[in-house]
């Protein structure tokens, strides 16, 4: 069994979860615990310096000593902003340089801008960042990002927050087959079976946020996702049967007392 290694650390869980869109930090914490995730994404934003001076900080609920915090560059639409955000993230996390690079193209699709993503990845890798990169399901771009030195390539299943599940199975399969770094499908998962389908292809992990946070019961969905990622990965390792057009009896066809042929 291949171990799931990110930035020289072995993880038991292949599910990475986001912390956005929850109703409260308490709910965030409970959902993450139920998911079994060990790597947790966060966004980088201005601190709320308003009236609520005692308002809690996310990282008081999600302890960086317990979880690997993966800061993202969500909301960046060019390489310069993404690099700036990563440098700020490293300062926030007291020197940690593991980042989730995402450079988006437009607000409607939140589809990755491959040109700016490639530019940012080159700069960040040169600056010593360990870059996990959100990308399209284009196998050539995925390989190029690996060649630049990204430590994990994270193609989308479908648009961020869409819940449409895996839309381009064969491209993801091509990416997985050609990769020498972990392939983590990031974005688009809607429900548990979506995560299983991704893992059954041989992907190394799945990253999701909305599917859990916006479920009617996020904590129950987090638990479902934990099982679905594990089930999908076990099924991949077990090796599925080939698909056949017609039936193949499970019971012996010989010595049937009702039907002597």
């Amino acid at each position, binding site marked *: 069994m291949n171990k799931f290694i990110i930035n020289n650390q072995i993880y038991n869980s292949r599910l990475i979860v*986001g*912390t*956005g*869109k*929850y109703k409260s930090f308490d709910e*965030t914490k409970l959902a993450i615990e139920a998911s079994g995730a060990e790597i947790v*994404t*966060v*966004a*980088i*934003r*201005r*601190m709320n*310096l308003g009236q609520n*001076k*005692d308002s809690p*900080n*996310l*990282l*008081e609920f999600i302890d*960086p000593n317990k979880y690997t*915090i993966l*800061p*993202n560059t*969500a909301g960046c639409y060019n390489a310069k902003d993404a690099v*700036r955000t990563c*440098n*700020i*993230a490293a*300062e*926030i*996390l*007291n020197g940690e340089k593991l980042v989730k690079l995402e450079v988006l193209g437009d607000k409607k699709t939140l589809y990755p801008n491959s040109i700016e993503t490639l530019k940012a990845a080159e700069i960040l890798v040169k600056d010593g960042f360990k870059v996990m990169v959100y990308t399209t399901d284009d196998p050539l771009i995925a390989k190029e990002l690996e060649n630049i030195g990204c430590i994990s390539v994270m193609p989308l299943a479908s648009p*961020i*927050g869409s819940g449409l599940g895996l839309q381009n199975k064969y491209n993801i399969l091509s990416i997985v087959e050609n990769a020498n770094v972990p392939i983590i499908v990031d*974005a688009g998962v809607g429900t548990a079976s979506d995560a299983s389908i991704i893992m059954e292809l041989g992907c190394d992990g799945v*990253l*999701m*946020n*909305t599917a859990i946070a916006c479920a009617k019961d996020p904590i129950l969905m987090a638990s479902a996702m934990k099982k679905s990622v594990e089930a999908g990965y076990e099924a991949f390792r077990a090796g599925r049967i080939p698909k056949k057009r017609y039936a193949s009896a499970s019971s012996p066809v010989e010595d049937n007392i009702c039907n002597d042929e």
Partner: protein
Amino acid sequence: MKITVNQKLLVLDDKISLECLLVNLAVTTKYMAVEVNEIIIPKSEYTKYQLKNGDVVEVINAVGGG
């Protein structure tokens, strides 16, 4: 002296260090970053860093995201 902190204009009577500004704003977390005029000021320099008229300060932290 006028400085901008997280897009809000602050008018101050005296010179102030970055450390003092953060204390006045009740910023206590260790998981944060500060940019002054788009340059990150390391935490170790907050005490000696003197803010100047017109400085644009961003106080940044981690929030929920995917």
